[in-house]
């Protein structure tokens, strides 16, 4: 190459502010520009010698440079490499060297043109930048568009204890929480694919295995054409903020549960479940039992095995006065035990067996918070963790205290509601008739059950009274309204009915009179009512309804049922002038059973049709008629233990009941001593094998005591010439064994065989609410009672 200043190429090569050189195809150097010579201090002659040039490359970079140059010559492709070149001042600077081949017309390489750009300043600022990035208080990373992580700052490496591999980058599954790894990767992949920003909250694994919440963000850096070429990300520690949010959410959920559940036991169970999902591995709610011992009210656990250990352990070793649970209660102060020590376990252990159980459980962290309100202690909330790498901390204690506060409020409210409910029930009960008439052959039974206060306070009633030796009036009704006014109005209506009936009025006039009285006395309240007048001599019943559900009737023997329907007048207190309610009549055969009720019985599920169906179904069962309290039987059969939001009143009348003998007790064992009285009664009214009848009695009682301990109802009643002994229990039924046990000397299994052998006939009928045994006793009616 010439240095003729008129040569354009030469001008360019000498004019540009970087090194330029040309290499021949054989590798020898043809040309250098002045910039190069000025920088390196080499003479023209020296600069043309390869060994001089190589000597100027920093020793650490020589191999890389040589390798790249050789590769370029071999492949005849351009290449670039960064290396340090020593200047005339003996200082090394970073250069970016590029070399590109020149081709002739035939395509062969004739020369290589090389350039070198001083990037030292750039690299220095890059170093400075790096220093900043390393020490910034954020976690910072850089990744390529394909997701490979090129760079993690020092903080990232120190926090996770992991360094990105140059070939494979980072395995995110290693450093993210298992629940967060996949969703985070998917979100990042989406951002990479669409060139959008990335934002995600995940748990990052610290070098010691603990996880902390981080908010990660990444933005793309784009080239001039807008294509992302690198992604810069940073992550901020949001652990504290997240914990606060979680605690807040937990308390909101707890508040929602408390607001929606009416039953305190269900509330405690649901909140405990919540606590076990979000805060602790087990949650135990202690409440003082009847005898002052602390009992577990609720126990929730993530681990069923653990629950099976804890429950019997606490039953056997209830907390003593010196144990933390009781101390927390007496002092009304919450306690946090971050790490449970062996000494603490030993202090709680009541004996070796207890200590062994405690050691096996391995509780590692505990929070106990008192449950109390307005100076009254309700119990204690006990939370435990078993993973020693995740102890409770002060924030968890605060959350637990707030949770305990909410629970205490709920328990206080429930207690208040319960005592108010009992008060209302007592008031109602005292406002209801204290005695029910019992003319010969007629058995009237009734029950009243108050709803929880706050929904429909008071207002339901039942009534039954005689207006002559052969005329009986029954009424039921429901005052629509709330408060003490409703209860007072109920009384007014009840007595209004009595007054009108005693003046000889028929059901329609009775209702009309009450409607007028209600309008006059309490115009803002209304009521529904069903009134029936029974004529014993005529065996008829006449009835009318004011907006009230119909009575139900069970026919004798067949047990068929129907409703005593009548077109209802409007509710009392709303009648337009000149309203004349319809009255219907029905004959009553001996052995019938009538049931009147209020809509609390039928509308608990807001489906009165279904409710009526359930009543008729329950009535059809002979057990309803044989029961010593058909009103209670019906209530139990229809409601099946449900708590209802409305009062329930039921009154039943059995017509044409024969002389008989009844007995009932909440505990079947009490029926055993009644056998004597039964035997004596039997001797008075019957001839025949009285002894065997008492054995049947004894066996049936024994059967209930053994298989369905609990309430028992017994009734002996003549049915034609048969004396039938009915026994009702609340058991789930049994398969009566009508054979002797195979092992002649078996210790049981004979009872029913004996009953079957001694009775004329015996039947067993099991229903959802209990078993009804009816045995025809081996006796005949005496001509006239002795």
């Amino acid at each position, binding site marked *: 190459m010439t240095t003729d200043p008129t040569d354009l190429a030469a001008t360019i090569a000498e004019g540009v502010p970087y090194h330029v050189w040309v290499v021949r195809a054989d590798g020898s150097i043809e040309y250098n520009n002045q910039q190069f010579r000025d920088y390196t201090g080499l003479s023209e002659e020296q600069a043309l010698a390869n060994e001089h040039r190589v000597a100027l490359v920093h020793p650490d970079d020589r191999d890389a440079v040589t390798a790249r140059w050789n590769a370029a010559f071999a492949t005849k492709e351009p290449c670039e490499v960064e290396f340090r070149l020593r200047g005339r001042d003996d200082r090394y600077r970073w250069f970016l060297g590029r070399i590109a081949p020149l081709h002739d017309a035939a395509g062969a390489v004739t020369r290589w043109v090389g350039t070198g750009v001083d990037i030292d300043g750039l690299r220095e600022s890059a170093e400075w930048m790096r220093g900043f990035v390393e020490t910034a208080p954020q976690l910072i990373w850089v990744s390529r568009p394909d997701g490979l992580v090129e760079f993690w700052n020092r903080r990232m490496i120190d926090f996770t204890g992991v360094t990105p591999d140059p070939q494979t980058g980072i395995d995110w599954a290693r450093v993210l929480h298992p629940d967060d790894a996949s969703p985070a990767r998917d979100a990042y992949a989406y951002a990479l694919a669409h060139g959008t920003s990335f934002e995600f909250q995940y748990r990052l694994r610290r070098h010691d295995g603990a996880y902390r919440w981080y908010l990660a963000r990444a933005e793309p850096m784009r080239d001039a054409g807008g294509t992302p070429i690198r992604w810069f990300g940073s992550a901020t520690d949001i652990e504290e903020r997240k914990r606060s949010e979680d605690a807040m959410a937990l308390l909101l959920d707890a508040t929602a549960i408390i607001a929606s559940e009416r039953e305190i036991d269900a509330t405690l169970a649901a909140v405990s479940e919540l606590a076990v999902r979000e805060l602790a591995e087990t949650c135990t709610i202690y409440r003082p039992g009847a005898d002052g011992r602390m009992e577990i009210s609720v126990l929730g656990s993530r681990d069923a095995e653990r629950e099976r250990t804890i429950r019997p352990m606490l039953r056997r070793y209830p907390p003593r006065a010196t144990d933390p649970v009781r101390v927390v209660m007496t002092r009304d102060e919450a306690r946090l035990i971050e790490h449970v020590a062996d000494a603490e376990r030993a202090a709680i252990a009541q004996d070796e067996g207890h200590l062994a159980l405690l050691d096996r459980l391995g509780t590692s962290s505990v929070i106990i918070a008192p449950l109390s309100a307005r100076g009254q202690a309700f119990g204690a909330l006990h939370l435990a963790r078993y993973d020693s790498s995740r102890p409770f901390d002060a924030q968890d204690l605060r959350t637990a205290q707030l949770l305990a506060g909410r629970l205490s409020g709920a328990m206080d409210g429930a207690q208040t509601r319960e005592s108010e409910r009992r008060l209302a029930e007592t008031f109602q009960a005292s406002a209801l008739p204290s005695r029910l008439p019992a003319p010969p052959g007629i058995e009237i039974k009734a029950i009243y059950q108050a709803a929880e206060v706050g929904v429909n306070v008071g207002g339901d009633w039942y009534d039954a009274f005689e207006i002559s030796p052969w005329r009986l009036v029954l009424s039921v009704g429901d005052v629509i309204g709330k408060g003490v006014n409703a209860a007072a109005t109920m009384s007014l209506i009840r007595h209004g009915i009595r007054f009108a009936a005693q003046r000889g009025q028929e059901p329609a006039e009775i209702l009309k009179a009450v409607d007028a009285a209600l309008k006059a006395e309490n115009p803002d309240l209304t009521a529904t009512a069903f009134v029936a007048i029974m004529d014993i001599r005529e065996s008829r019943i006449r009835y009318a309804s004011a907006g009230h559900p119909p009575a139900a009737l069970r026919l004798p023997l067949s047990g068929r049922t129907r409703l005593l329907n009548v077109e209802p007048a409007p509710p009392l207190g709303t009648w337009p002038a000149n309203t004349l309610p319809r009255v219907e009549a029905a004959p009553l055969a001996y052995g019938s059973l009538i049931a009147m009720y209020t809509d609390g019985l039928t509308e608990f599920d807001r489906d009165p049709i279904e409710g009526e169906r359930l009543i008729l179904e329950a009535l059809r069962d002979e057990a309803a008629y044989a029961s010593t309290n058909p009103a209670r039987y019906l209530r139990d059969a229809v409601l099946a233990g449900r708590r209802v939001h409305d009062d329930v009143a039921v009154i039943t009348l059995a017509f044409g009941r024969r002389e008989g003998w009844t007995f009932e007790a909440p505990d079947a064992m009490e029926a*055993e001593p009644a056998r004597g009285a039964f035997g004596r009664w039997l001797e008075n009214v019957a001839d025949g094998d009285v002894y065997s009848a008492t054995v049947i009695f004894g066996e049936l009682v*024994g059967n209930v005591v053994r298989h369905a301990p609990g309430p028992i109802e017994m009734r002996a009643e003549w049915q034609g010439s048969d004396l039938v002994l009915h026994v009702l229990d609340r058991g789930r039924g049994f398969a009566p064994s009508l054979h002797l046990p195979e092992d002649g*000397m078996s210790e049981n299994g*004979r009872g029913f065989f004996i009953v079957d052998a001694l009775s004329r006939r015996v039947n067993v009928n099991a229903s959802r609410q209990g078993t009804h045994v009816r045995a025809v006793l081996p006796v005949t009616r005496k001509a006239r009672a002795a």
Partner: protein
Amino acid sequence: MESLASVRLAGELDLSNVSSLRAKFASIDGPAVVDLSDVTYLDSTALNELALLRRRVGTVALVVASPNVRRTLEIVGFSTSFRIVTKREELG
């Protein structure tokens, strides 16, 4: 049979006094005579205890005066597993 253990029961034997019945039987450890002459009522409660006794000691004789009580024993087939007499003397 002078060497037999002997127990005398009386009154009504039912669920309400089964534990004292059990206690009386528990003290028997060999073939025995159970005297039911003064028993006025007996049902499967006592029958179960007699069965257990019989199984444990092998031989049990019963003295039964009341035809009612006897009938109950016969209904459950105890006349084959127990020797039943009306008077104590019949046992010799």
